[in-house]
C-alpha cells in the first residue's frame, strides 16, 4: 500500500511557514519546557469558573499550539509524533478550531505564566499563535474591526481627527468654566514641552472626563505640556492580536510625533495594555530606539504630589474603594505599589482585594476579549471569580489604572449585580485637588515672605 501525504489548505501552509519566523529562544523555551505538572490549572480564571472541564487548563490549551511546534520543528515530533503528541493543521476548519481556543478561552493575562515552575510563558506563545492566524485572515470579527481601525484611522476606536480635536476643545472649555479661568487650555502640538500626553481613544469616545481631569492636574501643577494632533493613541491592538507589524507601526507613529514636537517625556494615561505596549514591547516590535523618557500618568500624579506641585485633600474621597491591578500593569510591568501609594494619599477608606498585585485575577475583559462578542457568554461565566473577589472587599468603588479593565469590570459588575462603581486614579486625584485662587495664593506667599523677614 502506498502512503499518501495529506493535502494542506493554503492558509494552513502559510501558518506553518510563518511559525518559523516567529520562534525565538523565549518562545522555544516555553514550547519545550512544560512537564504537565498542572500548577497552571488553578491559576486560570477560566478553569476556576469551569471546574471539571480540562479543555480550559492552560497546559491543555498550550498543547494545542505545542503540537504544531513538535510536529514541524522538534526532532522528537518529526520521528515519533504519536509518542510526543505532535500534530498538525490541514484545513481551514482546523485553524478556526484553534481560533476559538486562543482567542476565546484565554485573555493572555499571564497569571499561569507566573505560577509555572518551569517558566512556561503560555500567554506569549498564545499571542504568537494569534498572530499566525491573523496573518491569514482568521480572527474574531471584532479583532478585525479594531485592527483595521487602528491601522487605517490611527486609533483602535476609529475616532476621526476632527472629532478628537473637537473633544479636546470641548474639554478645555469645560475646564475654563469650572476653574473660572479663560486662559486654561489643552495645548495641541506645542513644541519643546516637558510632557507630551497620550491617551486611549476610549477617553475621547466614551469618557472625556478623564481628559479634562488630567488637563486640570497638568494645569494646576503648572506643567509645560501638550497633546499631539496625530499619533496620539497609546493603545496598541497588536498586543492582543499578536500582529507585531501593527504593534510596531502604531507605536512608531506616537514615538515619531513626540520626536517631531521635541517633547522631553511621554506620559501615558491610565491604560494597562497601552502602557505595556508603548513603554515595554513596542520598541522591539517597531525596531525603534526611543530617545525620550516614558512614564505612566500614575507616576506623574504621584510625583506632582511629592514635589508639592499639587495639593490634595483625601477627605473629598470618603467612600470605600478597592484597587484592581491591571494584568499588563502589574504582572507584566511591575506597576503595583505606586497606584496604591497614590490611592492612599487621595482616599480615606482603601480596602485591599485578595489576591492582589501580580497575583490579581484578570478583569476578564483583557487580551481584547471586550471586542470579541462571540465569546461574551464564556467571558462572563469566567468573570465569576473576579465578581467574588470584588464582592468580598465590601467596597463601593473599584479603582483601576486601565481603560480596558474599566469596561471589563463594569460589564461583570452589571452581570453579577454587584452595584459597584468603577473609576480611575485620575478622577480621584482631580476630585481631591485643592485649588487655590491665584489672588489668594499670591497673598499667602506674601505672608510667608513677611514672616520670613521678621524672623
Amino acid at each position, binding site marked *: 500500500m502506498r502512503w499518501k501525504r495529506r493535502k494542506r489548505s493554503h492558509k494552513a501552509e502559510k501558518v506553518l511557514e510563518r511559525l518559523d519566523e516567529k520562534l525565538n529562544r523565549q518562545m522555544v523555551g516555553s514550547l519545550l519546557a512544560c512537564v504537565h505538572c498542572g500548577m497552571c490549572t488553578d491559576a486560570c480564571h477560566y478553569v476556576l469558573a469551569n471546574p471539571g472541564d480540562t479543555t480550559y487548563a492552560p497546559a491543555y490549551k498550550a498543547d494545542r499550539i505545542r503540537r504544531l511546534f513538535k510536529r514541524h520543528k522538534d526532532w522528537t515530533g518529526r520521528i515519533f509524533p504519536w509518542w510526543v503528541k505532535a500534530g498538525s493543521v490541514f484545513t481551514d476548519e482546523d485553524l478556526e478550531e484553534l481560533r476559538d481556543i486562543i482567542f476565546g478561552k484565554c485573555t493572555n493575562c499571564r497569571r499561569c505564566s507566573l505560577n509555572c515552575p518551569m517558566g512556561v510563558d503560555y500567554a506569549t506563545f498564545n499571542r504568537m499563535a494569534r498572530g499566525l492566524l491573523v496573518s491569514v485572515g482568521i480572527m474574531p470579527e471584532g479583532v478585525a474591526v479594531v485592527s*483595521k481601525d487602528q491601522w487605517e484611522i490611527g486609533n483602535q476606536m476609529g475616532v476621526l481627527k476632527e472629532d478628537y480635536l473637537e473633544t479636546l476643545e470641548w474639554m478645555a472649555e469645560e475646564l475654563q468654566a469650572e476653574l473660572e479661568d479663560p486662559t486654561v487650555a489643552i495645548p495641541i502640538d506645542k513644541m519643546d514641552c516637558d510632557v507630551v500626553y497620550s491617551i486611549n481613544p476610549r477617553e475621547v469616545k466614551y469618557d472625556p472626563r478623564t481628559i479634562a481631569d488630567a488637563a486640570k492636574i497638568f494645569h494646576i501643577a503648572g506643567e509645560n505640556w501638550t497633546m499631539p494632533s496625530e499619533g496620539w493613541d497609546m493603545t496598541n491592538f497588536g498586543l492582543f492580536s499578536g500582529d507585531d507589524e501593527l504593534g510596531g507601526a502604531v507605536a512608531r507613529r506616537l514615538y515619531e510625533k513626540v520626536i517631531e514636537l521635541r517633547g522631553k517625556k511621554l506620559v501615558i494615561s491610565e491604560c494597562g495594555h497601552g502602557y505595556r505596549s508603548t513603554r515595554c514591547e513596542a520598541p522591539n516590535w517597531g525596531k525603534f530606539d526611543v530617545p525620550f523618557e516614558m512614564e505612566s500618568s500614575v507616576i506623574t500624579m504621584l510625583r506632582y504630589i511629592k514635589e508639592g506641585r499639587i495639593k490634595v485633600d483625601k477627605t473629598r474621597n470618603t467612600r470605600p474603594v478597592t484597587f484592581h491591578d491591571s494584568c499588563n500593569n502589574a504582572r507584566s510591568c511591575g506597576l503595583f505599589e505606586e497606584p496604591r501609594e497614590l490611592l492612599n494619599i487621595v482616599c480615606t477608606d482603601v480596602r485591599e482585594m485578595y489576591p492582589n498585585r501580580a497575583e490579581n485575577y484578570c478583569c476578564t475583559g483583557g487580551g481584547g476579549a471586550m471586542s470579541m462578542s462571540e465569546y461574551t457568554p464564556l467571558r462572563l461565566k469566567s468573570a465569576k471569580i473576579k465578581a467574588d473577589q470584588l464582592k468580598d472587599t465590601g467596597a463601593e468603588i473599584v479603582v483601576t489604572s486601565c481603560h480596558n479593565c474599566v469596561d471589563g469590570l463594569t460589564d461583570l459588575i452589571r452581570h453579577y449585580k454587584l452595584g459597584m462603581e468603577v473609576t480611575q486614579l485620575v478622577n480621584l486625584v482631580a476630585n481631591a485637588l485643592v485649588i487655590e485662587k491665584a489672588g489668594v495664593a499670591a497673598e499667602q506667599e506674601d505672608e510667608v515672605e513677611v514672616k520670613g523677614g521678621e524672623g
Partner: protein
Amino acid sequence: MTEEKRINQSTLRLIKDDVTDIDIDAFVFYAQPNLALGAGFGTAISTRGGASIQKELDEIASPIATGDAVVSSAGKLKAKYIIHAVGPRFQEEDTEDKLRTTMRSALKRAEENGFERIAFPAMGVGFYGIPLDLCARVMIEAIKDHLEGETGIKEVIICVLDSREYKPFQSQFAKVEYEDGN
C-alpha cells in the same frame, strides 16, 4: 513629505495624508468583495460621507471578484467619487498578479468615468498584510505603465499614512526614470 514625477502629460505624486479626506475627483478604497464599507478607511468614508454611499453600494451586485473595481459617488466627502477596488488579502495565492490586476481595474474605471485627478492609498498594506515593498513596486509600475499610454488622467496621488509606508514608496519613486516635478 512629498515626491513628484512628470510622466508624459501627467503628474505622479507621493504625499502623507488621509486618502478619504482630500479634494480629488476620485480616490480608491481597498474594498471587501461584498462591498461593505466596514472598518478603517470604511469608517472614515461612512462617518464623513454619510449613509448614502453604503446605500448606493448595496444596489450593486456583489460579491465582486478579486481584481475588479466599481465606482460609487462619495456623499459628503471632499472627493466626488470612490473607486472600490477588491484586491488580494491575507497572503492569498498570486498576490502580486492580483494586485497588478486590481490596479489596472481601478485605473480603467477612472478612465471610463473621465476622472482627471485620482488618489490611491498604499493598496492592501497593513490590515490585509500585503508586503510594503511589493505594494510600492507593483503600484508604481502599474501607474507608470498606464500613464505612459494614452490617458485622460492628469494627476495620480499616492497617499500614505506614515513614515513606515512613505519610505518604500520613496525608494520606488527614485527608480522612475522621469524628471522630478518638484
